[in-house]
């Protein structure tokens, strides 16, 4: 682990001042950054501990939504009564992720900013463009079991590991950030990026910017939703494929639906055109299949992860069925509903 200066600002302005410059890292719960520090993947010369900033609450918004403080923990969020009642999809996704210990420490802002679990990114003995621009990507042609099937580039095939972010994508959350250039709001779909030619950039955050909150819009999908996660063991494993579905039925028809995938791309994977295919339709395997095909259009394995293409398709179908039936996947009973 590199040696770094440590700052513990108590207000936002001070935090932004401390956070200015190169080689600075904001530290909140630490569950990802400290891990990366130990692996010598993260090498900041200054660490700014933002955990004492007043960004911890969960509050109703004027628009009828919910504002999740960036420093509220994953546990506080998952078990918050308003989240559980109104945004059970988010609660479910949070509880599908990591472990109780990690959720107790991890913050909402940290969760969406966590970095990929790509073996090569984590192993400094191997080349990785995300870690060291220009080194090349050893995952391509390597052990690619956990890698992306959508939105990859010739520079990077990493996936985003967050479960929470997949639910937030389906809920069309907004990320509130502040920084040297002032405050701004980023639509969740624009928050994470595809690797392209700049795989070292996971998000559209600018240097020195800080997430202050995540806003959930009023439409909360409390009845027809699911978070279905497939992984290597039944708990404490990152998703090979996960599916978040948020749906609103009106009568026999789907009035609104969002489908987001985890474990398959550099960001939570949504395609509005796939959802368009379902809007106004009666739920059913045929319609679901068309939507799944549209969502997975162009999906391609890297060899070791070819299985993810059929796995994702089947998981989408099942998740849509779970959401339609109002029988969301339990994160405790491991039988898939």
């Amino acid at each position, binding site marked *: 682990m590199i040696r770094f200066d440590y700052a513990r600002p108590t207000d936002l302005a001070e935090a932004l001042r401390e956070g200015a410059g190169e080689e600075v890292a904001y530290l909140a719960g630490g569950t990802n950054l400290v891990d990366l520090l130990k692996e010598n993947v993260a090498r900041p010369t200054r660490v700014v501990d933002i955990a004492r900033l007043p960004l911890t609450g969960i509050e109703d918004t004027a628009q009828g939504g919910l504002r999740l403080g960036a420093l509220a923990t994953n546990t506080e969020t998952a078990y918050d009564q308003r989240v559980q009642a109104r945004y059970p999809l988010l609660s479910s996704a949070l509880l599908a992720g990591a*472990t109780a210990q990690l959720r107790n420490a991890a913050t909402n802002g940290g969760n969406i900013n966590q970095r990929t679990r790509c073996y090569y990114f984590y192993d400094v003995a191997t080349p990785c463009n995300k870690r060291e621009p220009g080194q090349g990507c050893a995952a391509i042609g390597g052990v690619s079991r956990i890698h992306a099937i959508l939105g990859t580039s010739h520079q990077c095939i990493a996936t985003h590991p967050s479960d929470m972010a997949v639910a937030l994508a389906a809920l069309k959350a907004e990320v509130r950030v502040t920084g040297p250039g002032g405050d701004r709001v980023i639509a969740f779909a624009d928050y994470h990026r595809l690797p392209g030619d700049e795989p070292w950039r996971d998000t559209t955050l600018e240097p020195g910017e800080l997430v202050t909150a995540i806003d959930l819009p009023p439409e909360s999908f409390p009845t027809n939703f699911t978070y279905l996660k497939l992984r290597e063991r039944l708990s404490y494993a990152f998703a090979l494929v996960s599916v978040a579905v948020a749906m609103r039925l009106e009568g026999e028809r789907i009035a609104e639906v969002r489908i987001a995938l985890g474990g398959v791309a550099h960001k939570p994977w949504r395609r509005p055109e796939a959802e368009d295919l379902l809007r106004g339709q009666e739920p059913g395997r045929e319609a679901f299949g068309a939507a799944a095909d549209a969502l997975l259009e162009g999906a391609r394995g890297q060899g070791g992860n070819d299985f993810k293409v059929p796995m994702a398709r089947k998981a989408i179908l099942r998740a849509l069925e779970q959401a339609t039936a109002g029988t969301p996947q339990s994160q405790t009973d491991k039988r898939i509903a």
Partner: protein
Amino acid sequence: MSQAALSLSNDPGLALASRPIGTVPVRLTINGEAQALDLEPWVTLLDLLREGLHLTGTKKGCDHGQCGSCTVLIDGTRMNACLKLAVTLDGCEITTIEGLGQPGNLHPLQAAFIEHDAFQCGYCTPGQICSAEGLIREGHAHTREEIREQMSGNLCRCGAYTNIADAILEVMGQEGWE
């Protein structure tokens, strides 16, 4: 040491290596005892406990939040000590296995773990017990199935899982749970 001397002159890591960085004053209450410490920022709570304070009951099984052996209670909440920089915990109360119960004064979970043979090599055990204490305090687990899921952050290579669940269920029963 000619080799070393040779490499000294043109090594780009040199400035980085010797850059002076100060320590940070930190107040911690560990197992009820107030401690005033001056710590380098990169010292984890786990290493502070084990190496600095000789509280070796908290175990290092992976050092990356991937096994749960280092689980302690921070302000009453279970967390992985390996992923916490100690300087970030200024003002916190930390309870380790040594604070939970001692020989002759066992915590109910410690006694139940012995009774149910909920360990073999014992290395993951302090983390399992601290985690179970955190789980009980959280109050989200009431059934064996919920215990299984919410204890999944504590790996046990000896495979004592079913006995661990039995031990926790027994203690929960004692405290009016289930």
